[in-house]
Every structure is written in C-alpha cells, then in structure tokens.
C-alpha cells in the first residue's frame, strides 16, 4: 500500500513538474508570437518600387502554386515525358544552390582559416544561404509529382542509399540545419536570450565543419545527378568530372553572389550597417574578387583539360560547339580576367560587373545541363520552354526569399555590430569553457574540494 502510494506521489510530482514546464514553454511561445506579430509591421516606406513590382507577382504566384498543387504537374507547366525536369529544378535548384555557396566558402574562410577580415559579411551570407536552401527545397516540393511522399526518404519508407539523389536530399536537410545553427546566435541576440546564445554559439564551429563537408558533397552531387544521363547530354558537357566542375563553380558562383548582394545591400540597408562593415567593405570585395579570379581560372583550366582529353575538337564547329565556346570563353575566361584586373587596380565597379557576368554564366551553365545540352538532338518544337505560369512561380520563390531576407536584416544584427552583452559573453564563454574542460579532465576534482 505504502509503496504504491509513494510511487503515485512521485509520478504525480513528475507530472506537475512536466506540466509547469509545459505552461512555461507555452508562455514563451505566446510571447514569441506576440513579438512576431508586432514585428511583422514593416519598417520603412511601404510604397517602394521593389514592393510595387514584387507584391503583385508574389500574390499571383501564390495563387498559381495552390492550383498547381491540386491539379497535377501538367497544370500550367511544360514539363513533359522528354523533359521531366523543368524550371523549378533546372533554375531554382540547379542555380540557386551554387549561388548559396558563398555561405560555406565564407564559413571556411572565417572559421577554419580564421581570416577575421571577412567576419562582417559572414552573417548576411549565411542568412542568404539558409533562406536560399529553404526556398529551393520548396521548389523541389512543387516539382514532385507525388508531393505527399516527400518525407519518404527521410522517414525511411525505403532508403535508396545507392542513389545520388538520396545523398543530395539528406545533405540538403542536414545542411539547412547546420546553417540554421550557424545563424542562430543572431536570432538569440535579437530576442535577448543570453543563455541560449551561449549554447548556440558554442555549436558554431561544429556546424561549420559539418556544413562544409556537406556542401562539398551536395554541390558536386547536383552535378553527379547527370552522370546517368550519359546518352542524353551533349558530349561537350558530359564528362566524368561533372561533380568536380559543379563543386568548383559553386565557389565562384557563391562569391559573385556575395559581391552582388553586398552591392545592393549597401544601398538598401546602409542604416543597419556598422562602421566596421562600411570601412572594410572595399577591402573585403577585393579579397573576394581575388578568390573569384583564382577559382574561375582553375575552372577554366579544368574545362580545357577535359576538352583536350575528350578529343572534343570534332564537335566545336556545330551550333552546340559554338554555344559551348560562348559559355567557356565569354562567361568563364572573360569574367576571370575582369576579376583579375579589378582586384589588381582596385576597381570596385569592374569587379561588380564581373560578378554579374559570372552569375549569368553559372545560370547558363546549369540551364545547359538541365535544358539546352540535355536532349540537344530533339528539334526546338519538342524542347522544354517554361510557361509564363512557371516563370511567375519561380519569381515568387525568389522574391519571397528577398522579402524575408529584408525582414530579418531590419531586425537582427546581420550587418550591424553584435550587442554589447553578447561581446562580453563571448569572452566569458571562453573562460567558462576552459574551466569546464579543466574540471572534466580532473574528474570533477576541483568542485569536490569546495
């Protein structure tokens, strides 16, 4: 009797504890919602050119997305039996992911190489990368023919571990988590959650290391997807080095995107930027341009090697061969030289133009793989050309991402300096960790003494 009673009391106590925690959590959650609703009110002018152009597109796009989801893939779309992958994968995913590559490159430079110079632009880049991944994952969702099965490779309704796409899917998911952790200290600073920030920022290095490994694999994995389309890709584009090419090009694609994004942000978010950021901005851009010039040259060199090894001279006089030359000379070699001269003579505007050309080149390259060089032997009438609905949906995805980017930048310390308390804590944290390590190494001896 007594024992039973005791166990009931213990259970009841446990339950009360759990309940009180739940109530507390609910309060936190409600508080967060209230804050969020308050924060949803736009800061700054409402009637800007950007808003006037993008809002109607987003509204129309949302409507199209909803109809697209219920009436099957063929609704307002040109994907066909010959071209199973349309603009959502061919553009949003294939182009969006390398553009988000700046996040892992800069994480490598700042956290692994400890090059402090690039720290000021890191948060914006990681935020950009994270949002890009979230929205491109949603583009994949739109492109799935059996959308409600999207969780199958995650929950294990059969793991196709020998599939490249399986790897890409898992690395996408894990990398999104890693990027969120990398960015999360900024959220904690915004909400002034000091304790949480300490925990989150201690996870940054691990998330970075893990994130870089994942990025290497899924950036190249996107290219590896085309390895089995051997007889469908034009021989000038098909090589066993597609994964390497995709990986290298993601470096300069990401860095160029950072340069262009920084140029726009410097105009739009100037009021949110710290003095340190504005002071160092030119130096940072020149450093990035140097990185772009080198990686573009490596890429060009690889392309030449592959071209010579593949004995591809025979194809070069065909229309596809000329298109290949346009891509490799016009959008790899020329921006490479522009970056080189730009960083040598400190011509920021030349670097900006080069970044734009590079981005365009990456778009052309990825669209070649998914649409133009893919089944190049079909006549134009049977080729895939996106419908206006598909283009509106694509733009909706990009613009929504920009809106959320703006919302976050206007509230969290993305370009600006971190709050004072966070800085102090950073120091304290190192001491705290040192102490913790010492205690652990001594088997807790030190605390036993007290």
């Amino acid at each position: 009797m007594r024992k039973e009673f005791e166990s009931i009391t213990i259970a009841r106590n446990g339950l009360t504890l759990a309940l009180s925690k739940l109530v507390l959590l609910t309060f936190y959650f409600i508080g967060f919602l209230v804050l969020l609703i308050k924060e949803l009110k736009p800061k700054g002018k409402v009637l800007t050119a950007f808003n006037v152009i993008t809002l109607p597109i987003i509204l129309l796009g949302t409507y199209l997305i909803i109809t697209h989801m219920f009436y099957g893939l063929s609704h307002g779309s040109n994907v066909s039996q010959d071209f199973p992958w349309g603009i959502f994968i061919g553009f949003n995913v294939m182009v969006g992911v390398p553009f988000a590559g700046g996040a892992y490159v800069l994480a490598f430079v700042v956290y692994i190489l400890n090059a402090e110079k690039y720290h000021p632009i890191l948060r914006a880049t990681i935020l950009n990368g994270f949002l890009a991944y979230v929205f491109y994952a949603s583009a994949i969702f739109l492109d799935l023919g059996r959308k409600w099965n999207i969780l199958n490779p995650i929950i294990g309704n059969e793991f196709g571990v020998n599939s490249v796409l399986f790897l890409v899917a898992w690395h996408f998911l894990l990398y999104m988590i890693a990027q969120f952790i990398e960015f999360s200290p900024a959220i904690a600073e915004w909400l002034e959650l000091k304790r949480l920030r300490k925990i989150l920022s201690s996870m940054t290095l691990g998330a970075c290391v893990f994130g870089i490994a994942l990025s290497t694999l899924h950036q190249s994995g996107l290219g590896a997807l085309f390895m089995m389309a051997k007889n469908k890709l034009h021989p000038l584009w098909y090589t066993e080095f597609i994964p390497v090419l995709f990986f290298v090009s993601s470096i300069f694609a990401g860095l160029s995107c950072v340069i262009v994004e920084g140029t726009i942000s410097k105009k739009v978010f100037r009021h949110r930027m710290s003095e340190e950021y504005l002071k160092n901005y030119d130096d940072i851009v020149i450093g990035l341009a140097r990185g772009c010039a080198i990686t573009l040259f490596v890429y060009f060199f690889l392309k030449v090697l592959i071209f010579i090894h593949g004995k591809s001279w025979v194809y070069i006089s065909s229309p596809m061969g000329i298109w290949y030359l346009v891509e490799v000379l016009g959008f790899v070699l020329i921006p490479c030289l522009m970056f080189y001269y730009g960083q040598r003579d400190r011509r920021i505007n030349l670097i900006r133009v080069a970044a734009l050309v590079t981005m365009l080149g990456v778009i052309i390259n990825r669209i070649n793989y998914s649409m133009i060089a893919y089944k190049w032997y079909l006549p134009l009438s049977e080729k895939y050309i996106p419908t206006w609905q598909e283009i509106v949906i694509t733009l909706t995805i990009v613009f929504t991402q920009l809106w959320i980017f703006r919302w976050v930048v206007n509230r969290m310390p993305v370009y600006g300096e971190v709050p004072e308390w966070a800085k102090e804590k950073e120091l304290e944290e190192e001491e705290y960790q040192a102490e913790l390590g010492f205690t652990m190494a001594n088997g807790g001896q030190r605390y036993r003494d007290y």
Partner: protein
Amino acid sequence: MKRREFLKVALSGLGLFASSAICSKTVFSSEIKAKTKEFFGVLVDTTRCIGCRTCEASCAESHSLPIPNIEDKSVFTKIRKPDEKTLTVVNRFLTEKGEIYVKIQCMHCNQPGCVAACLVKAMKKRKEGPVTWDENCMGCRYCMVSCPFDIPKFEYDEAFGRIMKCDMCYGRISSGKVPACVEVCPKEALTFGTRRDILNEAKKRIYQTPGLYVPYIYGENEVGGTAFLYISSYPFEKLNFQMDLGYTPYPEYTTGFLYSVPVILILWPAFLTGIHYLTKERKKEIER
C-alpha cells in the same frame, strides 16, 4: 593544443568515423549486382513480327489502360515511343528487305539506371527479372532522367500520378504465367524464358538459319545486358536502336561519386578541424 581541445577533436573525429563507417557499409553493400543469370527475359524476333499490334492491346488490357484500336494502320506513319498510356508500341520500318516491325518497351536491364537513381527504392529489380514500380515513389522523375532507353513515363495529369512503364507482367510471372504480350503473339515473335535459355535460342536461330539474321543480339551486352533481347534481319542502327550506349551498366557511372562520399565525410572534417586549430594558434601568436 590544450588537452580539452585534443579531446574534443578526438571525440568528434571518432564520432564521424563511426557514422561514416556505417554510411559506407550501406553504400557499398547496396550496389546493384546481377545476382543470377537465371532471371527471366523475352526474346523479340523481329523477322517474325507482322505488326498486328495484338501485343499492344493485350498489354493495355492487362494493365487497365485505354485499349488502342489495332485495326488503325495509320499509327505506323511515324515512329512512336511508349508513354504513360501505352507501355509498349510497335513501329514499322520500310527497308529493302520489306517491312520490319519492332516492338519496344522497357528493356529490364540487368543493372538498371532507374533503380540506382531512385531515392526511395520505388523502382526495384525483382529476382524474377522485371523492373517494377512501387507506390512509395515521390514523383521526382530522376528515373526518367537516368534511363538509357528513356522508358519510364509519368502521369502528369494526375495530382498523384504514377510512373508508368512495362513491368514484364510481374504479377503474371510470379504466378507462373507468361507476360500478356508473349501469350497473345500469333506468330511467336516473342519467346519467354530464362535469360540463359532465350540467349541460347537467339544464338541458335542466328547460326541455324544462315543469311537470315545479322549476327548481333541487341541487349546481350548493351548497358551490361538486358532481359529483353532482339534479333533482326536488318542492321539495328537502321531500326532506331541506340547503338552508342556502351556495355557499362548505368549505375556504375555514379559509383565513383558515391564511393567518394564516405571518404570525404571522414577526411574533410578532420582536415578542417586541423586547419582551424593551426590557424587559431597562429592568430594568437600574431596578436601577442
């Protein structure tokens, strides 16, 4: 390096090593290997086919698809491909040796690209030989990109479409029957049997009737071998067969990449953490 840092690195390294070891095991062991040569296949003898298209009709019937009008000979004016409503089609070629009819459908490769492509194993190579499709498919259509013969098709008009392709009548085979198209063929242009038997049969026909066949069995070695085999009296490249596919099984084009995955997952983090601590110490020295 301090002791706690060393411990951290060592622990994370161990964890990663363990996880990638598990990863690599699953990656390596799931390679698609043709387990046995004894699975079933179909021999298509194009010299016997008269283009009656009863195979098309019986295929549609046994898969509950719209049944084509086989009296309509106008379909032969252009070359057709199988699609989501017709899993097999017969094409006509006018040659100096007369009309030649070629039935096409899924080739049921020994090591199929679509199976290697599928991230939820909705595509399966059954031990009886057929390559089949399952309901847990996400509709990503990577199988369509990966198929050397461009066979899987998707029902785009449905909110919950299926991948449609010939399944060699998997249900019928597993209950001991022959595929629907083989059963109805009036001219015995289609022969069902174990792949070994039909391969021998094909060789026998080629060598016992001199001058009738070109000495080539399409599908014997293409993309590592297929369960459907073709023999013909006319060069295959002129009958719209793809002759440039090579003899390498398609999944092998991605194995190189897949093998690099565990390697990178082990080496990269160790390398990166190492550089991090090296540069960090150097930074501190400079600051001092």
